[in-house]
């Protein structure tokens, strides 16, 4: 499977698109995975190989390794007797270089926060009450 990896920027564009499509549709799932990329970019040879007499063979690499981050939706097929529509699988991935990890995850958090808007908001009513109390106490 020689699928091209996206650049980090393209990945975020696609990811927000995927989350947005999910929101518009009103239901669905988005899967995100992250894993160490233990292969060179042409997927021919692993960077680290298992050493028989060293149980900790993969825990002390000489250089930091990149990560691969994948995103996909859940494919759905049309089913009789339900209003479910057929939907194609969407998947894409990106490789994050070690020096870009902090930047990547900062943006990742923003995109996720914006895209996962259907989750429960904080209960505002309680908070307001607490604030009033605090103000009173402060005065």
């Amino acid at each position: 499977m020689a699928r091209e990896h996206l650049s980090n920027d393209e990945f975020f564009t696609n990811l927000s698109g995927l989350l947005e499509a999910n929101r518009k549709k009103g239901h669905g799932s988005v899967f995100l995975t992250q894993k160490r990329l233990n292969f060179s970019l042409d997927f021919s040879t692993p960077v680290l190989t298992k050493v028989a007499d060293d149980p900790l063979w993969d825990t002390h690499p000489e250089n930091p390794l990149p990560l691969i981050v994948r995103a996909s939706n859940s494919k759905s097929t049309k089913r009789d007797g339900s209003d479910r529509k057929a939907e194609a699988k969407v998947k894409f991935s990106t490789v994050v270089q070690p020096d870009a990890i902090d930047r990547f995850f900062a943006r990742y958090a923003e995109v996720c926060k914006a895209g996962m808007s259907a989750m429960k908001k904080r209960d505002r009513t309680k908070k307001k009450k607490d604030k009033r109390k605090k103000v009173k106490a402060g005065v």
Partner: protein
Amino acid sequence: MPYFTTSAEWLEQSSLLLKARPTTTKITSKYSFLAPSSTKIAKQRARLAAKAPTISSSSTHDPASLKATLTLKTYDPESGTCLKYQTDKAAEVGRLVGSLGKLGRHMAALPEDLSASVEQGSGTNTPAVESGVSREGKGGLVEVKGVPAVGAGGGAKKKKKKGKK
């Protein structure tokens, strides 16, 4: 495998697992935004009705409402360890993705972000280096960065926990 009740616990155990098996472990985050199936709604309604027959079924909790959750799963196929945490609170998303970043640093074999967890770092690293050195003598490791031995300890701890559950 049961879910952890706090995200901090999930993060701690996951980072131990990642230190032990950084190459095989993968983290999956699933954002699921689902309308419950009609059978589920029917079941829930029936349960509600059975519980409180006097109160009408359209009370505070609407079973038909959408449910959006974020599930984090750390899975290592080699040892079969699976650590999960689930939340439905939007306020947690940012923090959880931040912890994914922290775990990402373990995966990439970068040193821990010192500003993020100074206390934790100093606590776990001290014994790690010692045991790492002793290993160096026996196994002939060329380089010990402190991380590997923490992993070994983490693995043992994790297994113990598994047994309890």
